[in-house]
């Protein structure tokens, strides 16, 4: 097959990859904040639950989590289609890593900021919401960018539960045409371009948010 014939098929796969990425990113982001903040500030039982979630999903591997959700949950009467299982598994996995990012960034805000907020008699909630979080947000962006790229790479795992993403298309095309060099080379390139685009996006976001905060002196 000509490259001009291969490319559209692979781009179809890339579209699926992008779709899974866009669906699981918000899941991961929401879980990161919920679990990260719960682990820091919630009452002990909730805090322990957040901790178990974080340690469990960081301690086992993404592919096993995906298989478990897709192949084992049906034993409990919970049948998820491959797409839903993928989004949930990837979201849960990256969300656990993101929770540690959130926690680290909140802890990195200088203690004096917390003390000033106490001295001004803010409620615990406003301390977090108005003083601590706005400052830690900027610190979260670069690690979140890295995690988003990790998530993008992890989407390739869904090919193993028969979703027609970029990796799946590459594998089936390679099996059919035996043009393995061109196909896998091209696919690596497509992933690379996607990763670069995401890195660019997050750098832009950081610069934009940072511009406001440079004036605020969060970064000198």
């Amino acid at each position: 097959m000509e490259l001009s014939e291969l490319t559209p098929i692979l781009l179809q796969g890339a579209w699926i990859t992008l779709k899974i990425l866009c669906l699981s990113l918000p899941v991961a982001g929401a879980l990161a904040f919920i679990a990260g903040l719960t682990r820091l500030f919630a009452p002990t039982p909730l805090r322990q639950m957040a901790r178990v979630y974080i340690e469990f999903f960081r301690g086992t591997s993404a592919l096993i989590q995906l298989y478990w959700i897709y192949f084992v949950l049906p034993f409990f009467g919970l049948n998820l289609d491959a797409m839903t299982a993928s989004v949930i598994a990837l979201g849960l996995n990256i969300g656990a890593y993101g929770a540690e990012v959130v926690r680290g960034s909140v802890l990195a805000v200088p203690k004096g900021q917390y003390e000033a907020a106490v001295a001004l008699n803010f409620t615990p909630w406003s301390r977090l919401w108005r003083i601590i979080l706005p400052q830690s947000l900027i610190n979260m962006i670069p690690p979140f960018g890295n995690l988003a790229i990790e998530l993008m790479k992890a989407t390739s795992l869904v090919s193993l539960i028969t979703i027609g993403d970029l990796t799946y298309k590459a594998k089936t095309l390679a099996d059919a045409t035996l043009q393995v060099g061109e196909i896998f080379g091209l696919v690596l390139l497509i992933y690379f371009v996607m990763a670069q685009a995401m890195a660019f996006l997050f750098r832009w976001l950081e610069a934009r948010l940072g511009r406001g905060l440079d004036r605020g002196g969060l970064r000198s």
Partner: protein
Amino acid sequence: MTSPIIEFQNVKKQFGELALFENFNFSVEEGEIVSIIGSSGSGKSTLLRILMTLEDIDGGVVRVKGEPLWHMSKGDRLVPADKKHLRKMRNHMGMVFQHFNLFPHMTARRNITEAPMRVKGKSRQEAEREAMDLLALVGLQDKADSYPAQLSGGQKQRVGIARALAMRPEILLLDEITSALDPELVDEVLDVIRNLAKEHSFTMLLVTHEMYFAREISDRVCFFDQGRILEEGPPDKIFVAPEKERTQAFLNAFISA
């Protein structure tokens, strides 16, 4: 005679194994301006931090306006204070920090209005009007829209003072407010405090290394040494004719420095 506005009764404070205060007693009258001097590690700042509820105590009672700060009365017993009680008590106090601790993501004006709006529920207009008055008081009307990073150390600290005043505290705690400043910026900050002191509308408790300033504005000076008040009295007595040898040695070191 009225009861003191601040009263420490047999207070104990430990850091790990190390006892900083033991049976510590101390009181301040309403409207009094008290300077606390002494070498570092003697517990000066801890005293202020206990009052601002940034450090708790391990024994004894601290009273502010007659009410226990770290405790609540339950029947005739005192039990540890809950968050609600602490929040109520904090309203009496305001603090200015050595390292300013301004909120870097807010303009000077916003630093001042944030707490009155969020904590006291003031309207934005009212809070901003008061903020502008306070900025005028500290001579920074034109810096209202600047972020902390755009201000000099002295300007930052003047915003810090305005921020504390905006909450209308009765007791103002000043924790080495000029120690982090370059020498040429110290006076602009002290001038603000001088003016406040003239009005005598606050009770002020300041930890400072500015001896001349302490002598000038204080009603009383306390020399702290190893978690005790070794000597206290009117500034003229402490600075001119201290009784204790250690006080003398400390002051001599300052004069020759």
